[in-house]
């Protein structure tokens, strides 16, 4: 039996559970809706709805996340072969971390992590 098969089953059950909850609300709840009901929440101000502009900071955070997260994955590869690689692995990972840290210092100095 494929070891991932139970995961697939749990996935299907989890999605099913979410769907059932959504469907329950859809079929049991009271129906009639008017225009005011479906307004986005704006504290009583006439609703405009807005999702076009967002701060570029969030994109920057996203890009930095991808960079650093992939470094973390590399670290896992080294960590799981820690004993086999010995001192050689450690010296290599120190070089890797120094380069990573240089990039990190650059990011901090350029103010990419400042929020104002």
């Amino acid at each position, binding site marked *: *039996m494929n070891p*991932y*098969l*139970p*995961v697939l*089953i*749990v*996935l299907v*059950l*989890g*999605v099913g*559970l*979410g*769907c059932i*909850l*959504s469907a*329950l*609300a859809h079929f*049991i*709840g009271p*129906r009639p*809706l008017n225009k005011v009901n*479906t*307004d*986005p*929440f*704006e*504290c009583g101000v006439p*609703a405009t*709805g*807005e*999702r076009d502009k*967002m*701060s570029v900071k*969030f994109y920057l*955070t*996203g890009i*930095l*996340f991808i960079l*650093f*997260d992939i470094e*973390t*994955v590399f*670290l*896992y590869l080294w*960590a*799981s072969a*820690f*004993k086999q690689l010995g*001192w050689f692995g*450690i010296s290599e*990972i*120190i070089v890797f*971390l120094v380069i*990573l840290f240089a990039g*990190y210092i650059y990011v*901090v100095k350029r103010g990419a*992590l400042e*929020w*104002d």
Partner: protein
Amino acid sequence: MGLDELLALLKTDTAIEIIAAVIKILVVLVVCLQVPPVMVWVERRAPAMMQRRKGPNRVGIFQWRLYGLIQSLADTVKLVFKQEVVPRGANKVAYHMAPIFGVFTALLIACAIPFGNDLMIFGQKIGLSVVRLDVGFLFILAISSLAVYTVTLAGWSSNSKYALLGSLRASAQMISYEIPLGMSLVPIVVIFGTLDLNQIVVSQGAFPWAWGVVRAPVSFLLFLICMFAETNRAPFDLAEGESELVAGFHTEYNSAKFAAFFLGEYVSMFVLSCLASTIFFGGWQAPFIPYETIVKLVGGYAWIAALIGFTVLILKASFFMWVYVWVRWTLPRFRYDQLMGLGWKFMLPVGLVNLLVTALVMAALEFH
């Protein structure tokens, strides 16, 4: 087909494997889905105790009030019978998908957590977690990254300023804290030399001074902080920030979909608590009593020992659940720039240094 044939069929390896898988899935689902109602109740009664008021204590069965334990059931019924409102201009597909994402990601992580030592059943080795992987760590990190979609989809699709702001903040926060989360667990892999979660529990043993929290205390602190940040809980609950963003990313959600968000949140809190107990507090190992001794004490029935281990794990996880509530009512909320600063400027370098120091110490001990 006679009874004997049926029994023989049930004793084949595949049949045992399938039955075990079904039982394990049921256990995980039942336990995980039991958590949210209880936690909702705890989360309302505990702060009431801390603030010297009563909290919800009325709802019960007939004349038995049970300290308001049935309140959650009543709340759920109420939520299901509420009117479902989809805001105008919402992206329908993403809007309906978001709560579903919240529910199943948390349940998937629960799959990898070992809730007992390997059992021998009719000569076949059954690992007590829904999926027994030698890369359990990577599985958990991979799945936990999916949780960010809940927040992103929910906020973006509902066509509301507050929801969008909340979801942007929350997604940036969740991805930022995923890096220290990953880094905090690398030293654990270095120390125990495996990515298999059950193997990590086994090598921690029953004595607290050999547990992960003692061997890698800095990792534990980083992990604990990331736990709060990843589940968007106080003091990092800027995603909701009631005082400024109404309810953050789920502002436009109501009725059972709102309940689905809560379900997802509490299950992922529970799963992370289980993970913290597994990695840092010896998982299913009862403190001070080695597994072999327990097996001997219960007369050689390994399944009773497994049941004890399961209870121990749940108790340890419950402690972390209590810490969640405790912290929520103790610490005030962070400001957003402080939150991002903590993640990027403090926890990331500390994680790197911690990793380096752990590696050097381990190397000095292991390679001569």
